[in-house]
């Protein structure tokens, strides 16, 4: 077993177990923390795929900002104490398990049906693909069409912020 494979299996087990605990836990805080653990292991997956920038952004945005907000909301609503969050006796659990298993089977057999194109890119070039310079130069270059959608998205976020302030304040 190569070190890469060992890291992969370690992370795979951590992320799957953490996401299962997240779904099954009765305590919302524990669920939120397990989600953070899943996000962190996914960030390490990105690093093993030499996408350093996306890994850092994954940690900053998801684990560092969004989940902290989740924790805040859970704590301020005082949902922390272990509550009976699950309904019993509904069909939700067996249906979810069935759908999950069928999705897994479909994923496993998809390789037989569809053959994905394999690139012949060397590892050295892949290493550079995830760097900040490459991403920035391609995202913001005038020759590429990505600059305008990017700016539009940022305006969308600004609208969301302004909307939140207007909702929160009666008088501005």
């Amino acid at each position: 077993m190569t070190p890469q494979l060992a890291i992969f299996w370690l992370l795979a087990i951590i992320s799957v177990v953490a996401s299962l605990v997240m779904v099954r836990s009765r305590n919302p805080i524990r669920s939120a923390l397990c989600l953070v653990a899943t996000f962190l292991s996914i960030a390490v997956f990105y690093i093993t795929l030499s996408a350093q920038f996306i890994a850092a952004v994954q940690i900053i945005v998801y684990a560092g900002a969004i989940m902290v907000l989740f924790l805040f909301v859970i704590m301020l609503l005082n949902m922390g104490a272990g509550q009976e969050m699950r309904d019993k006796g509904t069909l939700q659990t067996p249906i979810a398990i069935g759908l999950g298993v069928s999705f897994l089977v479909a994923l496993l057999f998809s390789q037989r049906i569809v053959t994905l194109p394999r690139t012949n890119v060397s590892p050295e070039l892949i290493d550079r693909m995830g760097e900040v310079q490459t991403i920035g130069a391609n995202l913001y270059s005038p020759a590429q069409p990505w600059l305008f959608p990017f700016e539009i998205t940022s305006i969308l976020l600004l609208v969301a912020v302004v909307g939140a302030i207007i909702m929160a304040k009666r008088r501005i």
Partner: protein
Amino acid sequence: MFESLFNAFILPENVTWFGQNLHLPSFVPYVAIAGTLGFILGILPMLIWIERVVIALMQDRIGPNRVGPRGLLQAAADVLKLFFKEDFLPKSVDIRLYYLAPFLTMLIALSAGAVLPAQNLTFRHGDGTLFRIPVTVGDVNVGLLYILAMSSLGVYGIVLAGWASNNKYSLIGGLRASAQLISYELSMGMAILCVVVLAGSLKLSDIVEAQNQLPFGIKAAPEFLRGSVFSWFWLQSLIIPVILYTISMIAETNRAPFDLPEAESELVAGFHTEYSSMKFATFFAGEYVNMLVVSALNAALFWGGSLPPLNLAILHIVPGFVWYILKIMMGIFLYTWLRATLPRLRYDALMNLGWKKMLPLGLFWLFLLSGYSLIRDTIAEQKNSPLLPTTTRYIVTPEPVTEKVPALMTSERANATDANGNGASKPVTGAEMPSLVPPEEKPKDIPIP
């Protein structure tokens, strides 16, 4: 005379040791792990001593003088005392999270130190060429983002401690701490972005190297000012970013005058009210590690990292990490100085300062500095200009790259850029390129820099 001394610092790339061929640059990360951990954990007891002595001096007291010479062993005595204190566990706490919180704080604070560039080591290649390698655990391309990520993860330890203790004071302290951290992270990010605009890289060793230039890029400046105190980014970024960063670094570590999360007059001890003995000590140590890391980042970003204050041979003989540690300790001294001088802020004043004053100023300054570096680069491009461009090594021209990426996808023809992004070095054809699968066939690994 100095040349021979400099030669003593140059290491060979390969050495034979007990019949084994050792590739010395591969050992640099391990040296860095040992050095960083050793420095941080070794200096911790000293920090407590320094703080007590400096505050005693400022308040015209004697300070610690009972244990050891000049009270030097006071810190050891304190740690021993904490070891033997009762490990108190309050009722109805969430036990797992309660125990997890201090270690999370410590772990995240320590791991943020991984990308700090201590100094450069020079190696001699077999053919006589020299190359330099920054001594860091991982000289990653996104080093600054990594530190920001770690500092944003640092909230968890405090929030969890506040919540798991099942105590109102703890909870309010934890909420205050995390609100403060999140607010000041923004202005800290603005200050850091100002540096990134000037350096053109997120790699910390590159940022230190970018400060090794003539002040303001004036070609007429004398050579002893290259990489001197006047060309570091505190002055190059026109002073405001370093002020913003320093204020937000103090707020980030919850130290006086921003120590509202542990305001003893209101909240007993804030988020660590319910923690005793070594669990409290771990929090305490985590806070000091955080202080060291943000001071080290301050030194690397604004104060030239491992560069000596003037480009003189006699100052270059001192190894870079000594300068770096000196700059870090000046940050620590500032912390102590402020703690002894300033009263604590009121909570609304704290939020006002962060959101309404520092953040707009940071945004405005980022705008201003971008314009400044654009104008300076435009002037520098002209013939016989008196100026050098702000970013000499990292100007990425869009043209070759836009051709590169589709080519990468189809793997017909790709122009590899070198590690600095300096355009195309050598065209690689599809036949030459090894395939990703099977992995056994890939060419031998590039030595880890």
